[in-house]
């Protein structure tokens, strides 16, 4: 047995939990190694000393603070929401129902009667579609470019209706130039 192997067995030796044969090997090593012997004595002293460490006492207000917190903990307001599975399920149900209602509502149609100068310039091709070279300013922000599909007759006559469909549930805008 070398010193490293002995180190692994020191706790077992000082607590008397090693079997007879191993304990004898340890003793044989200790008898011939003063360094390991000192280590063993120090560990034994340390373990004895740790058991006798001075205790600290709770401060005077410890229990009062604890009961104050426990009273708050046991009040009906703090009890239900966080830990009740029923409340959690109810909240989840309401969330899902609200989401479903929001997503399934029919698209709103709103019509605006506006002048040509007010028509949203959402793409350079809008100028061509409108058949003018005017510089149009964007008024309705956030309208999808890809969804811009003016009706085929959009260049006909002086009064032209432009339908600017938008994504998802945003209002569909009908713009009429005149």
């Amino acid at each position, binding site marked *: 047995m070398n010193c490293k192997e002995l180190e692994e067995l020191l706790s077992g030796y000082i607590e008397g939990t090693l079997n007879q044969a191993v304990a004898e090997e340890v003793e044989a090593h200790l008898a011939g190694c003063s360094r390991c012997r000192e280590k063993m004595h*120090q560990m034994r*002293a340390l373990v004895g000393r740790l*058991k006798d460490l001075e*205790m600290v006492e*709770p401060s005077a207000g410890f229990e009062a603070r604890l009961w104050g917190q*426990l009273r708050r903990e046991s009040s009906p307001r703090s009890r239900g929401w966080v830990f009740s599975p029923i409340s959690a399920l109810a909240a989840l149900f309401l969330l899902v129902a609200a989401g479903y209602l929001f997503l399934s509502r029919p698209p709103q149609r709103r019509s605006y009667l506006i002048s040509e100068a007010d028509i949203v310039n959402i793409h350079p091709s809008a100028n061509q579609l409108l058949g003018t070279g005017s510089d149009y300013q964007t008024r309705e922000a956030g309208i999808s470019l890809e969804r811009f599909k003016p009706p085929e007759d959009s260049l006909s006559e002086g009064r032209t209706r432009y339908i600017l469909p938008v994504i998802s549930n945003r209002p569909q805008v009908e713009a009429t130039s005149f």
Partner: protein
Amino acid sequence: MRENLSPQRRTKIPDEELMFHLARGNDYALEVLVKRYELKIINFVYRMVGDFDQAEDIAQEVFIRVYRHRERYRPLAKFSTWLYTIASNLAKSELRRRSIFNPISFTRLRGERLSSIKRSPDKALLEKELGQKIQEGIGKLKPNYRVPLVLRDVEGFSYEEISEIVGCPLGTVKSRINRARLKLREILDDYIS
């Protein structure tokens, strides 16, 4: 219900039975458990975190969690094992938090040169200083070694109980305690003989 837990009787009632009463709405059972364990838990946490105020705060949180989870407790595990599991987890969380937000706290201790206690003429002072040096030494151990060492050598738990508390195999616990003792012996080499 309260009559069943009269002061005459309460010292004899096992912890597990008190938890049974607590789970059924008798808060007086918690009062008995707090009286029974507050000193032990504060001291255990104090050995772990080395700061008395924090030890009290964590001990409070331990009892609050006992109350909060009173209905989840199953007497398959000893109450004390369950209680110390909560305490050691909270203490370890605090040590982790400190290592993130204040990584130099133990480095500073490591750099200190300890004054020789052996030369002190006054025995009481010597004992007090040695206690402080041991506390500092414990603070230099990694949490995974500190917890089983304190549970074994300060609190007096069996290896099997420690294995349950820390959730490690018995062999790992024994090995960690042995290494923790060797390390602490090395740290306190000048002060123990």
